[in-house]
């Protein structure tokens, strides 16, 4: 009999044939399974097609040329058909990002492209495009001000009793070497996220908060053409327009889940303050920025 591992992440209980050491082990009954197997060649009713992927509201198929094809259906099953000699880190890296995000979308949840920390049992999120420094700022705030960490790339918004809630993800962060340097973390013994990608996995086990939180604030990070750091509060409908751009894999899913997303995003933003951070690109502003954010968090 094949061995299965059971984990909790993003409010889900996942039973997996593949070991995913980044996730937290659980003993609860699973509602999502991940296994190896044969995947369909194409979707019968694809609503959108992209580069080597097809998607409908309940099914998703993506082929990563050199390592595996993934099939996700009904928000509860992931089947992986690996290529010969595929590296397990490569297979796992995409479970932890695109594949799990599609599971969340299919379940009608709202995965945001954010990292997150905890302040007084509420969630503070950092949104932004790839490479903007979401993970770095979350870890900096954790190291400097002891805020617990809840998520790296994806944070899930859901609802409970008509109120918005945030689920923690898992205690692992992906960091480039320059971020490790900024945070004064040695890369010694840190695993690479993929065989040929020079980005590291940093484990936040002891500083990780696992559970459900109410929303507190969301900071959207953008580059500033000017050489200074600015933080501006965003109000009204502009909040919605800005945060909507940071739904995880929004370009891939198009408008398939727009009703669910609209409802959850509105609920979330009714409870969370929203700020835009403008910071100069490629300049180490981490100390200044974390101190400014800390002051704002305490004033909200």
């Amino acid at each position, binding site marked *: 009999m094949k061995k299965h591992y059971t984990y909790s992440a993003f409010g889900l209980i996942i039973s997996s044939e593949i070991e995913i050491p980044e996730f937290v082990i659980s003993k609860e009954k699973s509602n999502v399974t991940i296994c190896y197997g044969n995947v369909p060649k194409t979707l019968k009713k694809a609503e959108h097609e*992209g*580069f080597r*992927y097809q998607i409908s509201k309940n099914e998703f198929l993506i082929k990563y*040329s*050199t390592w595996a094809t993934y099939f996700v259906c009904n928000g509860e099953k992931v089947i992986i058909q690996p290529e010969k000699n595929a590296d397990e880190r490569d297979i796992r*890296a*995409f479970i932890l*990002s*695109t594949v799990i995000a599609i599971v969340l979308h299919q379940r009608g949840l709202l995965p945001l492209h954010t990292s997150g920390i905890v302040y007084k049992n509420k969630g503070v999120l950092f949104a932004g*495009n*790839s*490479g903007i420094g979401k993970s770095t700022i979350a870890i900096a705030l954790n190291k400097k001000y002891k805020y617990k960490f809840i998520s790296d790339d994806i944070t899930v918004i859901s609802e409970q009793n008509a109120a918005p809630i945030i689920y923690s993800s898992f205690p692992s962060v*992906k960091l*480039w*070497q*320059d*971020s490790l340097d900024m945070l004064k973390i040695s890369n010694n013994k840190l695993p690479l*996220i*993929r065989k*040929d*990608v*020079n*980005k590291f996995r940093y484990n936040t086990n002891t500083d990780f908060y696992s559970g459900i939180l109410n929303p507190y604030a969301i900071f959207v990070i953008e*580059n500033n*053409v*000017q*050489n200074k750091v600015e933080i501006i509060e965003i109000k009204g409908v502009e909040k919605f327009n800005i945060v909507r751009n940071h739904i995880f*894999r929004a*370009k*891939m*899913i198009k408008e398939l889940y727009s009703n669910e997303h609209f409802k959850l995003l509105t609920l979330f933003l009714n409870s969370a303050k929203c700020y835009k951070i403008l910071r*100069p*690109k*490629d*300049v180490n502003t981490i100390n200044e920025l974390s101190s400014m954010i800390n002051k704002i968090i305490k004033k909200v």
Partner: protein
Amino acid sequence: MKKNIVWLASYPKSGNTWCRVFLSNYLNKTKETVDINNLQIGSIFSSKHIIEDNTGLDISEYTENECDELRNFAFTKWAENFDDFAFFKTHDAYLPLDSGENMFPVKSTKAAIYFIRNPLDVTISFANHLACTIDKSTNRLCDKNFSIAASKKKFNQQVRQKILSWDLHVKSWTEQNDFPVLVIRYEDMLLNPQKEFKKILKFLKIKTDNNKLNSAIKNSSFDKMKLLEKKTGFKEKPSSCKKFFNVGKSGYYKEILSENQIKKIIKEQKDSMKKFGYL
């Protein structure tokens, strides 16, 4: 599928941005000078943002070669958003993928304009751009395997671009037969911008309006761009370099380069230097 892509191709620091600003001003429907931080012409072929937007994928976890495989698909799709012309800037050498397939979307390509500048001047401007010594920029300009945006230490807004040596870059674009290429010398643009920009408009079969031409040349002049950069900053400037628009002259290598630097460049880049009138 539209056949509307026009490549604005060059080795770095050879007048590509100047032409983008000119075309943006010339094709602008209003009389106002275009914002250099919001140029609507010449998205770069190495933009991760465009690749991600058009594939739906997050490529920060992709290897360099995997990213290259996505570029053809992404830019073919992106080009569909434009009518007659989808101008894309590129510093990549014109190369196929390792598999032999096209990295450039050839089927959607109408033509290319290749900007060329004396490598003896390029190396000085390139040193400013890369914030390194001229010896280092000269070594890079002569390196047959040189790539830009290839740092593995940090996230880059652009994917790695193989630009090779200056001579191989020139040959890769000017000796290919996949689509027509107009070669424009930076020095000729400086000497007679009216004539060179007219040549570009004619090549692209865009009607020439002399008033618009003069106004676009004025609004894209080096001094004007330098002033705008000082006033508003320029988002395409690498953070390590102080000014994107630096000197913009031709022949100033004579006052700056050492004899050894000149000799090295001439010795190693002579084929294309001869062919395009720099020797």
